[in-house]
């Protein structure tokens, strides 16, 4: 197949250890980092930031970082928010309430539980009336969401903001998700090179099946258990000198991604 060619204009990142993409670059260059500050989600108005659940603050934080790097207008920017588990803390709280006293379910908690809560908060905060989506694909969420975002970029010839994040689980549900720490990243993807282009991506869907590229050894702990951290091999290539990685997009199927930094 002809590779899908698209251009990265912004990169966002947050984990308990890495507060942004610059921190990843520094870490990979050998720096010793302090723990990251909690996601600020500065794009949310103060009252919304207080009200917003953790999953929303994380997604808005990484999306906001990528947006700022690109200089794009969020009002017309399509967005795809991906998360393998949604807000596990809210799922735990809701299921606990439903088991005990279902009629006491909080209306705010319920509307925060929808998978598109980050997309909703984002579009409201930024005045975005462009298409917005919320997606998942289990362990393959990042790769499947990248393919969805790339297909929007190329079929509609418009820039698309992709954010992929999962918070830590809690309660009895945690044993099922196995995700005990947060990770999120975001890419602002465009159909053509421009003044703010950081890198060129070429995506193909290989017909064979092979193991996905592992994350850099220093980031193995950040990657373990969190499906959103499947982005790390790609982020590491973006932070370094480019190269090729293989990232799962479905059961026994991957994306091959060639990364070429643009000076």
């Amino acid at each position, binding site marked *: 197949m002809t590779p899908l060619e698209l251009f990265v204009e912004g990169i966002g990142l947050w984990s308990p250890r890495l507060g942004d993409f610059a921190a990843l670059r520094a870490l990979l260059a050998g720096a010793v980092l302090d723990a990251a500050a909690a996601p600020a989600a500065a794009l949310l108005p103060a009252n919304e930031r207080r009200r917003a659940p953790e999953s929303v603050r994380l997604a808005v934080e990484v999306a906001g970082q990528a947006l700022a790097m690109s200089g794009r207008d969020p009002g017309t920017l399509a967005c795809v928010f991906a998360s393998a588990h949604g807000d596990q803390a809210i799922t735990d709280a809701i299921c606990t309430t439903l088991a005990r006293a279902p009629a006491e379910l909080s209306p705010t908690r319920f509307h925060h539980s929808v998978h598109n809560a980050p997309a*909703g908060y984002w579009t409201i905060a930024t005045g975005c009336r*462009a298409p917005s989506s919320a997606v*998942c694909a289990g362990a393959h969420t990042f790769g499947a969401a990248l393919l*969805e975002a790339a297909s929007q970029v190329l079929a509609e010839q418009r820039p698309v903001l992709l954010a992929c994040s999962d918070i830590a689980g809690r309660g009895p549900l945690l044993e099922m998700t196995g995700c005990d720490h947060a990770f999120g990243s975001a890419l602002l993807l465009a159909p053509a090179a421009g003044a703010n282009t950081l890198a060129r991506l070429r995506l193909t869907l290989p017909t064979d099946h092979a193991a996905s590229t592992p994350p850099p050894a220093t980031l193995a702990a950040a990657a373990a258990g969190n499906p959103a951290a499947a982005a790390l091999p790609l982020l590491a290539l973006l932070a370094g000198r480019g190269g090729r990685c293989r990232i799962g997009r479905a059961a026994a199927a991957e994306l091959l991604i060639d990364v070429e930094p643009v000076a």
Partner: protein
Amino acid sequence: MRNRYAGAMTTPMTPLAVSACTVTSALGDGLEAQHEALRSGRGGLRPNDFGSAPRLGWVGRVAGVEAAALPAALADWDCRNHRLAWLGLQQDGFLDRVHAARARYGARRVALLLGTSTASIGATEEAYRRLDADGRFPADLRRPALHAPDSLSAFAAAALGLEGPCLTISTACSSSAKVFASAARLIELDLADAAVVGGVDSLCDNVLFGFNALELISPVACRPFDAARDGISIGEAAGFALLERTDAAPRAPRLLGYGEASDAWHMSSPHPEGHGAELALDAALARAGIDAAQVDYVNLHGTASRANDAMEAALLARRFPATTRASSTKGFTGHTLGAAGIVEATIALQAIEHGFVPGNLGAATPDPACGPQFAWRNEARRVDVALSNSFGFGGNNACLVFGRAP
């Protein structure tokens, strides 16, 4: 500058064939049950007999879900939501159509894109009701794949043997409309030759008590566009469609256009002037290369909430001539949430196939804001172009345009 936000770059799309579809809801199993119920004006709502007490409102419950056992090879996926999905996949010869597409194109060239709002969270709710002495999930429900929001698509990929692009879209009540848009892009870019699209949502305490907490559930069967409407009735459904290039099925009805847009307004109520809904409409019409006057039938989102129906009635009145007929069918099925997009897509396709416009069941006293476009009763009428609206929480809007094969 109507298209300033959503449609600035919107150009006509290559139509796709909807070469097969199926639906299972409170109206029955399969397309013919739905058609017969719509024709006879027989709604599927009943007093809520599902889930934990107190059982509030009315529901559109699918009969026989509990008895729809999964094949042994899929037993690990067993839960009520997947039983509904499996029941739905077996109707109208749909499984055979997917198998034929898989044989023709190869498993890696058939995409699978499904919408759901709550997937199999009913199984997670049950696990929390039956935690063991150590506070863990009961042993029979320690199945991680059931307790994840992509469970429906993962189950369907296993059940259908598909290996192409696979994604769950979960944008609340627009979920299974947006899957058509994603599928159209994948096929346009030659990332797939065909796509199975659709959606499933099943009744669960989460949505029954959640919408109750938002004071959005009617104590009676929902009354879309009635002056005295007082909320929704929640339903459940499974629906699927197969999309291919038109040369593979030249006589099949077509997906002519799609539109998606955001309200940028509120998490749980629509923009009062329908700004995002209108942008989605504009984008859908632009992709179909038609104007509003060419639309014969609009299947409305029409949830029977005060806010949605006021917004949507005004949008219809200002954008369509009286020759365009319109109705909500949620008085028949209830609001099937993440499955509403596919259920109402199949109703739009049946309007084209059978030449009839289903009446807007449940409105005894129409809201005076409703224009002359409303079909309060069934109408026999040739329908060449039918449109379906789906609007979700968080201000997430989608609009689909279907048409007769030329």
